[in-house]
């Protein structure tokens, strides 16, 4: 005799299927890195499927088994904060890494622009020097915060509690780094009008623009995650 699995018996209308409805509600409530969120939701769906199959082996109908499985798991609103905590920390770690990478990207950009002005027809003015200093400051803070974040949310978290406001601090540091890279991109493109090797200056501006886009997207998601309740 073949025992039907939950997948065999799933209702045709996914909107009315308790398992599908549960997974869709939970997925809609969570924010964070797409790959990790997808993995977490898929594991929970697998767990629900296994629970439904176990009830069906005891003789329950699919509808009853699905209702019981969903009840056992707890409401989506009830388990979302636990899931969101892991996703928020993962997003903070990701944002910390990309914000830290803005430092070498910035150094690369300024190296390129100095190379582009090597014929001495153009020399950096005081505004450009001040901008470089600010950029270096933001990049240093981002790199230090990234190292701290990766340490306290990794193996050190076995001994130390993760600071509650750390994801928000990472989000705003990432935002600051992305703004700095955006301004750098604009300045580099403007400088391409006065330096001898303008294609190199445009390339440096493009590198800064890409760095800005990557850090800004991650920081935006991190801000959204940091606003959600966690348990």
């Amino acid at each position, binding site marked *: 005799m073949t025992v039907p699995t939950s997948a065999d018996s799933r209702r045709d209308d996914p909107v009315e299927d308790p398992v599908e409805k549960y997974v869709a509600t939970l997925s809609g409530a969570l924010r964070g890195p797409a790959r990790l969120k997808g993995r977490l939701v898929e594991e929970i769906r*697998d*767990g629900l499927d296994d629970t439904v199959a176990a009830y069906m082996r005891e003789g329950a109908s699919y509808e009853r088994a699905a209702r019981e499985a969903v009840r056992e798991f707890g409401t989506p609103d*009830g*388990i979302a904060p636990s899931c969101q905590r892991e996703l928020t920390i993962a997003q903070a770690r990701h944002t910390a890494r990309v914000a830290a990478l803005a430092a070498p990207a910035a150094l690369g950009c300024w190296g390129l622009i100095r190379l582009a002005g090597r014929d001495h027809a153009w020399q950096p003015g005081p505004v450009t020097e001040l901008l470089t200093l600010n950029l270096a400051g933001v990049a240093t803070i981002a790199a230090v915060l990234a190292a701290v974040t990766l340490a306290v949310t*990794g193996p050190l978290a076995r001994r130390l509690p993760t600071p509650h406001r750390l994801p928000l601090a990472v989000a705003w540091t990432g935002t600051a780094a992305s703004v700095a890279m955006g301004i750098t991109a604009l300045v580099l493109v403007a400088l391409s009008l006065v330096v001898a090797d303008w294609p190199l200056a445009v390339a440096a501006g493009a590198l800064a623009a890409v760095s800005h886009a990557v850090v800004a997207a991650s920081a935006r998601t991190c801000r959204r995650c940091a606003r959600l309740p966690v348990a």
Partner: protein
Amino acid sequence: MRGHLDGLLLAVLEQGPLHGYAIIAAVQERSGGVLELRTGTIYPALQRLERLGLLRSSWDAVGERRRRCYELTEAGRRSLEEERTAWREFTTAIGSVLNPVPTSPGLAT
């Protein structure tokens, strides 16, 4: 219960890799059905233990299906021993208070 969840999850994985549902079933079976976990919270807890380096995971074939299976790392085994030691000390202390060893009247001050 929540404070002991890590220890329970590490303990049922001591004998070998298991996937999420099998972990839940193992906890319930070992406790004789007394411990009822809020099943949905197990999955983020497993991810947290993996982030802490106490577990590692991979997608494995379980029957005809593909499931995320978890196993203990060396750090996880050490953490489990620490959990056991802490639990023994805790139960000994509580036991000493609840069931005091009778002292002879002559020793009472």
